């Protein structure tokens, strides 16, 4: 097939494009509305506390812009003092998402009063979730029917832990969305459906969300060389560079500019501050995690950690589909390797499959490295999951030729996931599958039950019932407590203590790194003082205890 034919074969009829856009938009809208309707029961997580504070501080900069412009002093916006005043906080993460949190907070809460603070700040994260659904549909459509593409979106959105993360004002789902967008753009650019610079823009935007994506270009370059989209000669590296397609040059020129431009904190000292940013994540602290009864606190961590955790937190039907997709891909790789021409349709389809599994695999491999920081959560390789879902459905399409059967199988898998979500919401982070006996089985074998201290939300009414200011809140931090206070869930600003024996009211997560606090509570509080708890099917997530004043 010559080059022109190759390009033509990728172009869909305009009507089809419009239908796809419409369906993808409906998926996105559905996701957004679903998140809005279900977010209220989820408490504020530890990191959200920081981002709520960041949003308020960063909004100050946008207000300052307005002030300086009205005073005809625009240069003040760029002064180090002005920048550091507003952007110094939480400068270990890029600020695209946090800036959106800030603007949403400022416009929808602070200025107009349309939404409460938490809803306003979480809203941009839901938009990213909706975008993930939109882009995943389009990515799926490269090789799947419309029905299966919608199934891919539903499988993604209804995965219990993913669904839970989608609610939060954090970066984990936004980076998943940007990873899908990057791969989709990459494929489209390779196939001349989009201009070359779009790839650089996609990567630049991805990098402004979270550092997880910084490794992606290396994976994509490996893919491009492997599938001969880029030719690289080890003996003639300079010639190879000269022949390098523009999209790669864009990556090292346009993307860094986008990154630099989006983050005012970098402007006074770009190199020094970028070095700090990268250094911070290269030597990130380890967050302890319960793993089969032991608490992992320092490397070397088990290499199988992300794979085992995925095997027990992805619903079984979906996991089976992923395994099926993998088997089909392996079979196809060995049986059809030499049967098609270099630029044939089948060749390109197999290339797409390898693009999927490469992007699905690398987030897992990064965490699997024995010295990678263990942050604990499955969220750290969650950006690999959308690619595995598409991969799973491609496998299904190979195995079952009957389209009606596709629908039945995917509906069953989606149904099982939705049922699981309804069972665990709003504690979706505690979800485990049948392999370990769900949440109770996981607790019994000593797997982490929860993270981030959001479980205390349902117990907040106890705070207003007492006058004391000194409380222990385990994993729920001061910024979360301030957010609860501002949102009216508690009636006073609390002073947080660390050890239960130092106060008379404690909320503690009786597991993982907070187990010691709970043990302290057992030592110093009478068992008649354990008044309330949050639990999931009898597995305690947070316990509220009172000890009598002496």
């Amino acid at each position, binding site marked *: 097939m010559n080059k022109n034919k190759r390009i033509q074969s990728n172009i869909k009829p305009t009507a089809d494009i419009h239908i796809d856009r419409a369906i993808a938009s409906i998926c996105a809208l559905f996701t957004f509305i679903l998140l809005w309707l279900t977010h209220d029961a989820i408490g504020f997580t530890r990191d959200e506390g920081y981002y709520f504070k960041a949003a308020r501080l960063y909004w100050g900069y946008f207000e300052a812009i307005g002030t300086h412009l009205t005073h005809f002093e625009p240069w003040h916006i760029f002064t180090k003092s002005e920048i550091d005043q507003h952007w110094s906080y939480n400068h270990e993460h890029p600020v695209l998402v946090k800036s959106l949190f800030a603007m949403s907070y400022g416009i929808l809460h602070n200025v107009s009063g349309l939404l409460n603070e938490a809803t306003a700040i979480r809203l941009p994260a839901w938009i990213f979730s909706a975008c993930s659904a939109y882009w995943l549909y389009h990515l799926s459509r490269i090789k799947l029917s419309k029905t299966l593409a919608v199934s891919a979106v539903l499988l993604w959105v209804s995965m219990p832990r993913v669904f839970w993360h989608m609610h939060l004002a954090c970066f984990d789902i936004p980076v998943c969305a940007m990873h899908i967008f990057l791969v989709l753009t990459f494929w489209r650019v390779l196939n001349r459906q989009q201009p070359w610079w779009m790839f650089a823009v996609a990567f630049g935007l991805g990098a402004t969300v979270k550092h997880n994506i910084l490794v992606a270009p290396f994976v994509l370059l490996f893919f491009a060389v492997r599938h001969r989209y880029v030719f690289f000669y080890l003996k003639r590296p300079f010639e190879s560079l000269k022949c390098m397609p523009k999209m790669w040059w864009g990556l090292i020129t346009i993307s860094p500019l986008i990154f630099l431009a989006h983050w005012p904190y970098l402007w006074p000292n770009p190199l020094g501050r970028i070095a700090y940013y990268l250094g911070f994540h290269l030597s990130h602290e380890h967050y302890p995690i319960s793993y089969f009864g032991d608490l992992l606190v320092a490397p070397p961590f088990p290499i199988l950690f992300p794979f085992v955790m995925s095997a027990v937190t992805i619903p079984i039907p979906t996991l089976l589909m992923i395994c099926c997709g993998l088997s089909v891909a392996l079979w196809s790789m060995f049986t059809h390797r030499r049967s098609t021409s270099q630029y044939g349709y089948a060749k390109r389809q197999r290339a797409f499959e390898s693009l999927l599994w490469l992007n699905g695999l690398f987030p897992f491999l990064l965490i699997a490295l024995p010295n990678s920081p263990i942050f604990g959560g499955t969220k750290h390789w969650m950006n690999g999951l959308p690619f595995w879902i598409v991969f799973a459905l491609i496998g299904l399409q190979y195995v079952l030729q009957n389209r009606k059967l596709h629908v039945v199988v995917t509906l069953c898998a989606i149904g099982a996931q939705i049922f699981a979500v309804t069972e665990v919401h709003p504690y979706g982070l505690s979800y485990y599958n049948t392999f370990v006996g769900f949440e109770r*089985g996981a*607790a019994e074998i000593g797997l982490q039950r929860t993270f981030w201290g959001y479980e205390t939300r349902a117990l907040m009414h106890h705070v207003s019932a007492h006058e004391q200011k000194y409380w222990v809140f385990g994993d729920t931090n001061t910024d979360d407590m301030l957010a609860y206070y501002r949102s009216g869930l508690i009636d006073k600003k609390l002073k947080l203590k660390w050890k239960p024996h130092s106060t008379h009211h404690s909320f503690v997560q009786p597991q993982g790194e907070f187990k*010691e606090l709970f043990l302290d509570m057992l*030592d110093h509080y009478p*068992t008649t003082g*354990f008044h309330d708890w949050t639990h999931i*099917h*009898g597995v305690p997530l947070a316990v509220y205890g009172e000890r009598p004043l002496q």
Partner: protein
Amino acid sequence: MIVASIASIRCRLKHRDLAPTDADIQTAQTILAQSCQSVSANETIPLTTFPSFSLTPLIQSPIDVPFLPSDGLEKIKTLQHNQYCVWVEQDGQTAFQHFYEQHPEYEREILVDTHTVDVFLLRKQEPIRSFSFRTQFSQAAVRRVPTKMYHVKRQPLVPITCPYKKNKFDCRGKGFSKLPKKQRRKENWKQVQLGRKHVTTNGWPVIEMSSDHEYDTEITFPIPNSKDLQELKKLVIQYGFVRGQYTFPQSPTRISVFIDDQLAKTIEEEPTFDFKEIQIPWIATSKTLRLIISSADKKPQHFAFDAFLVGPSS
């Protein structure tokens, strides 16, 4: 995959029913309050739960009971109490049955039999008398004894006597309070503490004491002169290393047990997350028990133990 989906939903429905219902909890708690009240300060009836993560009976518990997680009980051979109240949820039945079979010296009586919760009373067939060294903690003497004469900076090393305050012996030394806050936090391991620690997945009441390459840590318990103690035949030491958020040192820890200044037993253990037990014959006339912890590692090992004497009840 269709079968997997249906099975998945079915299993989840079953899983939902494993948690005790509110009505059953209330019934079981009422009986607990009646049957598991401690007889006296010396004769308490601890409550334990199967599965070990369950805290259900503690929430809005009508009585104050000493609570012992069952994963700790499963790890040890010698049980200290004559009676245990056992709260068994549906998915804890197998583990409880196994535990019961491991302790044929106990007979069980069912107190509550509801659909989702059973409550048993385990009673020792031949009652025992025990003497816990944890209850004598405040009477003990704790010292840090130098392992060598001089510090690397050629300062002579002297033994440090640790004063007692609120369930702790403070071995951090005189200059401690002048140290900066961060440094002070690093020195906290030098306290010998009584309390529940993370030596098993769900914690266990122990005494935590650590040593380093410069100092051994030594604790000496005086034995009261009491007729009650004369029939106690066995010293039981249950020990492990506190996991918390610590990383364990590479070198082994040596635990030396002295009874009346005579070395009774020495063991070397690699610090790992495990809880073990040793038994040593006890002579009724013994006056002191001393434990010395030593290690060649700079890092503290967060050793923790529980020790008690046990024998037949007269």
